[in-house]
């Protein structure tokens, strides 16, 4: 009984994480400029990886494997914003401008 409940919870978390990973990858391909693509990559780093690892932790149970998954999650939690921040600063430093919507034109730029 308990195992069935844990299986259902972990399966739902893993499926939700897979969905977020697919959405994020689609965003990396379809977004118009670097800064928007970083935003989409952030979905994979936070929501996708977080939900997937939470599902695996439910499947593993409270043991060393769950601790390793927690360490992996902590690494993601600290390194992913650092990398995104470094990319954004380097891109701005080199002279790339974020694609902004014109006043009165709600569409933003065209997709590339």
């Amino acid at each position, binding site marked *: 009984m308990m195992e069935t409940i844990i299986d259902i919870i*972990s*399966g739902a978390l*893993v*499926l939700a*994480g*897979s*969905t977020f*990973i*697919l959405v*994020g*990858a*689609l965003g*990396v*391909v379809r977004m118009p400029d*670097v800064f928007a*693509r*970083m935003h989409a*990559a952030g979905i*994979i*780093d936070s929501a*996708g*990886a977080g939900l*997937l*690892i939470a*599902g*695996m932790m439910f*499947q*593993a149970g409270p043991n060393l*494997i769950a601790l*390793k*998954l927690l*360490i*992996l999650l902590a*690494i*993601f939690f600290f*390194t*992913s914003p*650092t*990398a995104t921040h*470094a*990319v954004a*600063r*380097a*891109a701005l*430093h*080199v002279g*790339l401008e974020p694609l902004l919507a014109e006043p009165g034109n709600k569409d933003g730029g065209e997709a*590339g």
Partner: protein
Amino acid sequence: MFVVASIAILIALALVIGRALRGPTVFDRVVAGNTVGMLAILLLATVGFLNGRPEFLDIGIVYGLLNLIGTLAVLKFFRHGDLSHSGEEEHAE
């Protein structure tokens, strides 16, 4: 359930590698490369659970740390043109 997750991660990897090959600027490629590393770690963990051998997680932890160092090194090189740059005078701009 982990089979579905593995397939989703593989599709996402294909899409992101496509962006890394096509990306107009070097920063597109860096973002895509960082994401490829992240997805590789997740695939490693998922396949480990699928085979009943979660020891692959150790490799994932090491790869996660290496991924950050690699990304920061590439970015520093393309920003300053030099890996030994101290990065001090940029506050003056």
